[in-house]
């Protein structure tokens, strides 16, 4: 599954113009503690969070994630968006809760990260 397929499944929109929507989604995750995400992050992960600051991009890029999904309509800071554009990382936005988004991902066959 690609990021653009995930967007359709979640009815999410992409906030970054330069993003690679062809990136392959390998697994899904929801968490707002960055160290926790660092411990469980994987290449190709779709990560749902309410965090909107710059360090979200640093973690996502370090982990080579496929996309970040900002939940419940939270909007990223200007600098966050700019950094994501620079890195070609997709930032998706949805009004749904992380719970609902994970439910939709699970239903579509997106797995949790392997232990």
């Amino acid at each position, binding site marked *: 599954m690609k990021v653009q397929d995930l967007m359709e499944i979640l009815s999410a929109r992409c906030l970054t113009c330069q993003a690679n929507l062809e990136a392959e989604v390998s697994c899904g995750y929801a968490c*707002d*503690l*960055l*160290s*926790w995400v*660092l*411990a469980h*992050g994987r*290449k190709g992960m779709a990560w749902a*969070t309410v*965090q909107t*600051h*710059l*360090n*979200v991009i*640093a*973690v996502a*890029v*370090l*982990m080579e994630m496929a996309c970040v999904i900002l939940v419940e309509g939270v909007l990223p800071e200007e*600098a966050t968006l700019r950094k994501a554009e620079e890195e070609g990382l997709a930032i998706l936005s949805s009004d749904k809760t992380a719970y609902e988004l994970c439910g939709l991902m699970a239903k579509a066959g997106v797995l949790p990260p392997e232990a």
Partner: protein
Amino acid sequence: MEEIALVDTYQVRPGDFRTAGEAAASIKRKLKQLGINSAVLRRISVASYEAELNLIIHSFGGSLTMEMTPVELRLYSRDIGPGIADVDKAMEEGYSTASEEARDLGFGAGMGLPNMRRNADAFRIQSKVGKGTTIEMCFALQPAAEGSR
């Protein structure tokens, strides 16, 4: 004599969350160019990011140094204080003394040091209150599964 192929040092300023992750990203970029095995690179990335964040959150200022030899990569985190009073406690998962500001950003989960230890092949921490903290981590660059040579 030991051959060190690459040495790099990054200064990390306390409290500067805006540039957080730049040193780790730079280390990763360099090592990727050198063609380091991606599983090892991932572990080095996590450990260096956690070390960098710890310097930003807790230290009075410090540096991150990487040293590469043909067989291993070493990461050193050194700071000028304040030092950790109870290192054993600090190594426990979930224990954190991070500020409210850091916690609001999603840090301070008490996973930093445990994440470093888990990802490194060798981990050593030395700390003295009033002096500072030094962390030394080693990552083998050759897969151990290949057996002795």
